[in-house]
């Protein structure tokens, strides 16, 4: 059993890493990864929602009638998203201003509902927690990786968190491609990373 729980956790980090392997949750992936900071913020917020909605869905899975399960899952998810939104407004307002509309949109992120429906509603609490945490961390890592590439190429800087930032890391003469911080840059970046992962994975 212990081995399988470890597996539930680690599968989210590579085997089923959300935006690359499952190709789910692309809306926030493409929209907020202009900077690393945004990627991390979005990833942490989504992980929080994932873990707690997985726990609750798993705990209530025997009580929820199957015909209204999606409605019940959405109520649970929406509750945690609102919790995140309120907490972020109260304690990380700068990040909230940057992520804006994408925080409430976590409700419709298919990763969260997908995990609730495909995993948490069929498995125990511990396994569901591990699953949520693994997928969440995988999502955070993916967004940060995408954010790193896009921020370095698109604005020539790297913002880890708040004031902890590196400027002109590619030298002062580097001309940032503004293309990378726009939507097409996100698509191309995501496509190339997916391609690279498949290349490594297929060997």
């Amino acid at each position: 059993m212990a081995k399988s729980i470890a597996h539930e956790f680690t599968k989210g980090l590579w085997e089923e890493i959300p935006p690359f392997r499952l190709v789910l949750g692309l809306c926030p992936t493409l929209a907020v990864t202009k900077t690393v900071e945004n990627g991390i913020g979005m990833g942490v917020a989504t992980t929080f929602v994932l873990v707690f909605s997985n726990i609750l869905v798993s705990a209530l899975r025997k009580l929820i009638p199957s015909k209204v399960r999606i409605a019940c899952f959405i109520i649970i998810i929406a509750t945690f998203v609102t919790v995140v939104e309120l907490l972020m407004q109260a304690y990380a307002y700068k990040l909230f201003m940057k992520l804006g509309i994408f925080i409430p949109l976590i409700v419709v992120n298919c990763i969260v509902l997908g995990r609730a429906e495909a995993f948490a509603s069929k498995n125990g609490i511990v396994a569901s927690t591990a699953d949520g945490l693994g997928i969440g961390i995988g999502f955070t890592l993916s967004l940060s990786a995408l954010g790193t590439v896009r921020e370095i190429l698109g604005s020539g800087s790297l913002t880890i968190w708040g004031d902890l930032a590196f400027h002109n890391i590619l030298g002062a003469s580097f001309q940032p491609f503004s293309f990378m911080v726009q939507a097409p840059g996100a698509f191309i970046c995501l496509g190339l990373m997916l391609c690279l992962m498949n290349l490594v994975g297929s060997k």
Partner: protein
Amino acid sequence: MNEMVKMVVVLTILSCVSGGSLAFLRQNTAQQIEYQQLKFVKGPAIMSILKGISNNPIEDRFKIKDGDIERSFYVGVVDGQAKYVAFESSGGGFGGPVGLMIGVDLTNDKILGVGVTTHSETPGVGARAKTDPDFVAQFSGLPFKGQFKVTADGGQIDALSGATVTSRGVCAGVTAAIKVYERLKDQIKEKAQAFK
């Protein structure tokens, strides 16, 4: 039938618990959220208007009931004395209301500065009310009384070229603020003295 009852009961209970806990959280974070909004949205405007103060006007604020609405006033302390006060007003612009932050020197009733906070004016035209410091600087140092008008209407403020409607809106907002100030002056001065 039994299944249907169960569905209704489960959904109702879940919604109630969710609503209840969110209401609880909202109540507990409301103050902190208000503070954050002041700090990041209105804060920059307040700080640019109240110059040379030694306190934090976002923390040193008070509210006064004005008819049905409650107005917030931000106090600026100089040399241990509450000398300035800033508050919000608005006037009708071209694309909607133009939100203003107005700083007043309590010792001589003169305008310390005016800043545009929120607006939906045309970028590059009316939006210059916010970005062009020369426009709002015209108000600084003028007596905070009477009525403000653009020069085209026989007033004392040069309108932004091409954005007369916005400029009128700003003047109307300042004029509205004067009325508020005259109405609440005694209360403002009394309450501001509490901050040192």
